[in-house]
């Protein structure tokens, strides 16, 4: 029995054979908290991204979650969606997290997307690196698309003619993911998919 990472209540475990045999997955949050997150399960595709899957909607509970995880730096919360991410992502293709700028990473002390993957016990490879510090928020859509590439291939890495899955925490306009996909495809990837934890309504 452990405490819910979000509300700190004891997580009531129903005694069952599955639990006794340790077949049941350990849950990081309680039923009540987990009910507050709303599944989106959006799947779509466009020219650059062969498939984009988003797991959850950006509702109040998710907004609070992201605030605590990223702004309050509660690294432990990486495990809240570990089971869901693992179910979706385990398998062959190489997972490529959307990278953070190194300075920003040091400032925050951790990279949230990497932590999500570590928590889900999913292997990943950093193939990309950020080119500049400019934040996307301040620019209009046109400006964003016109700006220089957001990412470049990390020196010393190579891309195979195979499938890659990008991972990011939130999908807002898709610009970030498209920039990342462009770099991978230009380097020889045959298929680039993407998974985001959250899909924000625009």
């Amino acid at each position, binding site marked *: 029995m452990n405490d819910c990472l979000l509300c700190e209540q004891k997580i009531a475990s129903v005694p069952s054979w599955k639990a006794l045999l340790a077949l049941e997955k350990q849950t990081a949050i309680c039923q009540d908290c987990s009910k507050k997150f709303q599944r989106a399960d959006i799947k779509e595709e466009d020219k650059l991204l062969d498939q984009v899957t988003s797991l959850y909607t950006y509702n109040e509970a998710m907004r609070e979650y992201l605030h605590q995880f990223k702004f309050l*730096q*509660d*690294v*432990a919360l990486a495990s809240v969606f570990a089971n869901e991410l693992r179910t979706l992502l385990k398998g062959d293709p190489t997972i490529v997290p959307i990278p953070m700028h190194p300075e920003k990473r040091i400032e*925050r*002390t*951790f*990279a949230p997307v990497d*932590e999500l993957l570590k928590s889900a016990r999913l292997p990943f490879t950093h193939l990309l690196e950020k080119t500049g510090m400019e934040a996307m928020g301040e620019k209009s859509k046109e400006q964003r698309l016109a700006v220089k590439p957001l990412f470049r291939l990390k020196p010393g890495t190579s891309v195979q003619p195979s499938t890659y899955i990008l991972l990011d925490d939130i999908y807002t306009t898709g610009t970030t993911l498209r920039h990342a996909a462009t770099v991978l495809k230009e380097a020889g990837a045959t298929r680039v998919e993407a998974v985001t934890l959250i899909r924000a309504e625009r």
Partner: protein
Amino acid sequence: MVGLNEEVNKIRNGVLRMANTFDPSVRDFLAGRIWLRLHTPFPIETIDAHIQSQHIKTIPGIKTTKTYANQTRHICNRCENTIQSRFTTFDCAKCEGPCTYCRHCLKMGRVSTCTELIVWNAEQPIYPTNHTLAWQGILTPRQQQASNELTESNTKRIPHLIHAVCGSGKTEILFEPIHKLLLAGKRVCIAAPRVDVILELEPRLRAAFPETAIEALYGGAETTTDSAQLILATTHQLYRFRHAFDAIFVDEADAFPYTAEETLRRAVRKAAKPEAPVHFVTATPSDKLLNEIKKTGQISTINRRYHGHPLPIPRYDSLWNYTKHIQKGKLPKKLNNWTEERLRRKEPFLIFFHHIGLMEQAELLFKQLDTRIHAVHASHPDRKEHVQALRNKEVPGLLTTTILERGITIPNVQVAVVGAEQLIFNKGALIQIGGRVGRSEQHPSGDFVLFHHGITYAMDDAKKEIIQLNKGGVPN
């Protein structure tokens, strides 16, 4: 402008260093506090200069030791949390190694292995000794006696418990003892587990001590550079104090989460100076607290309300299968009638529920009786406004969780508990809830009904204790 400020700071800090002196506003703010080095209301350079001149001492955020079994054990140096499950260790990009942070006090800014805390390390500020007690009321003989006994405990520096029934005027008892401490230049804190209690106390204390620097601290209140002599704070806020107070009064000492959390208890102790007494004020002390104070301190009991009328005795009324009825979209008949009666007689009412979900289902049904009836709970965004609306008679009544069990006074309020047999309604909670009824001189009584699906020991114990108190007995 920024450039100029930077220059000014540089010069100021240089001067400070050379003269081995300090900025009094930094001292006044930091004295008695334990703060994140990087998040003070002062420029970082100013703090750095004070560290260099040793006016400020740094302390690592987390202390990690190895046990005999070679297991690591962490202690948070801010909140003194030692519950190991409330720590998380991760691979830190800043200190490039395993780094541990405390989840317990996370919301006040994360404290980790590579976070530095700062404390004031030089001469302490001197607090004013001129204060006026503007409160004009007169204490009942019993209140006066308790007040005197409390002052005596302050002199002896022993803990004191004011065990006073709801509506006996507990806060007024504190005025004189606090005034005496302030006159002696002492720093005083009134702490309460719940923000509602702090919000209700603040205007009363400001009115009582008009010349005293008073600050109210609770989650959401902004940090100022003030260094108030009298501080009102939620117990959580005390995590950020250390050896600050000459006396602490913990109001509503038994309210969740104070009793539930050993760490909060330690935080209160840490906020007090090592020799300073920590006092408790409550209507429903736990056995543990009673035993503790019996051994180490003094107890004053007040079993009469200030207006001299007895406490309302709960009456039981069965409300079989109320959950099912409400879930099916039907308000149980007795509950319906009780509410209609209140509406007809224009008596404000509070109806307590044990479960938010059930309460919100019921809210829809109550709205069919009167659309202005609302449900409130701890994280309800409009809680304060709804309670105020009830006071202003803009709404006829509220549905609530136990969050409103204490600290609120509404003249002539009538109270019902739905599901009084539920575990959350223990003896203390029921006594507190009943304590909402009949608080004012004009309306010294009122209905206090326990709607239940079976009678529990807690219900009987609460009733027994109220009857005993009314007879003038001292509960044990």
